[in-house]
């Protein structure tokens, strides 16, 4: 099982994303955006990692979404292959229309706005550990294939534009009904509170990750590759490993899910 970690100019998480995927039993390589796009068909799955593709020029993800590799990825998605977009990768998937995958650009990932007690307490870039509640049923989505509904996963995030907004008032209802909301920001005990710091970026309905209707494309703002090993967890976390550098962290489940999804598809 071989995956491509797609690298654009300005991507900066490709190496650790590949290491995290390898720790889950996947093999793969970093696929530069200017390689012949048709070579993507030789892979079983794809990850678009985090960073600042094209320096976030125009708006995050907008320029990368027009690259030929994205058209090739759309074709591979149509064949049912899994794609996971992390942080900037999520922004690229949104700008390309692959997420939520309803036919156009259906949402935006706007600048973070942190609200507490009715007041804006902070805006813009934020970096912190967060807890995600898995909202979709087991096996609904390629990148959370092994997670049960209600499972909690800890991972860090670091972004300025992760605030999911939409001008389509009926969209949230549709995403909820179709099981396309995969992760929500929640407290460490799993309660969803729409105030900062639980809703860490002001995202509608605390949404941290969504999938397409078919479930094979997942986008999420937090970074699973940054909690794929127990040693990456913060010092206060009870799951932090001592000594074993290969002990799994919670984020590895995302890559293990992708691997399992590929196995099941075969």
């Amino acid at each position: 099982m071989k995956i491509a970690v797609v690298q654009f100019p300005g991507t900066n998480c490709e190496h650790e994303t590949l290491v995290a995927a390898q720790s889950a039993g996947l093999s793969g390589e970093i696929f530069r955006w200017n390689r012949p796009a048709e070579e993507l068909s030789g892979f079983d799955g794809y990850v678009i990692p985090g960073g600042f593709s094209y320096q976030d020029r125009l708006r995050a993800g907008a320029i990368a979404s027009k690259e030929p590799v994205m058209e090739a990825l759309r074709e591979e998605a149509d064949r049912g292959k899994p794609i996971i977009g992390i942080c900037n990768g999520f922004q690229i998937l949104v700008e390309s229309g692959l997420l939520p995958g309803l036919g156009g650009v259906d949402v935006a990932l706007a600048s973070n706005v942190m609200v507490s007690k009715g007041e804006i307490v902070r805006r813009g870039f934020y970096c912190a550990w967060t807890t995600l509640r898995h909202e979709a049923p087991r096996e609904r989505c390629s990148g959370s294939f092994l997670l049960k509904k209600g499972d909690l996963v800890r991972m860090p995030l670091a972004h300025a534009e992760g605030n999911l907004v939409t001008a389509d008032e009926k969209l949230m209802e549709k995403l909820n009904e179709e099981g396309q909301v995969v992760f929500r920001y929640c407290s460490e005990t799993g309660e969803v509170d729409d105030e900062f710091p639980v809703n860490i970026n002001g995202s509608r309905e605390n949404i941290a990750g969504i999938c397409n209707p078919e479930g094979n494309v997942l986008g999420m703002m937090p970074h699973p590759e940054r909690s794929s090993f127990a040693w990456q967890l913060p010092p206060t976390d009870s799951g932090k490993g001592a000594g074993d550098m290969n002990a799994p962290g919670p984020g590895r489940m995302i890559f293990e899910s992708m691997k399992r999804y590929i196995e099941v598809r075969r």
Partner: protein
Amino acid sequence: MKIYLRVWLKIPDAEAATVKNTLRRRMGYDAVLSDLGKERLWSIEVDDSVQDPQELARRLARELVNENKESYKASVDSVDFEKGYVPVRVGLSIEDGEAVSTLNRLRNRLGFDMVRGVERSVVWKLALSSEKPEKTAEEIAERLLINPHKDFYEIVT
């Protein structure tokens, strides 16, 4: 009364170059888009009682423009763009945090009590040779320059 500050880079604008390249090389506008420029546009609402708006515009520019790398042009109550391209103004349709904090900074930190409101937008100047340049500009705005879930655009006439 409204003071407008048109601000542009006098060093090469990498963002404008990237947008131009994307439109020409990736989106099929190489035959019709000959050039593209970018400006920031500050629209600053001030008290009507201001005696010398041009002087106030100069003072505001000292705070909002970095003249080491940027140039600007100020105008009062209307903004005009040169002929030869289609100006497409893009702004946020959701709350603009930077505009809010700029208003707060001008009024509460820098003593510009006469400032009532601040609006921030980007003007993309498209040099188009198509039969209907404004129609092409609209298409470009909708295909690339905006995300309709957070941005608006208008062709500045």
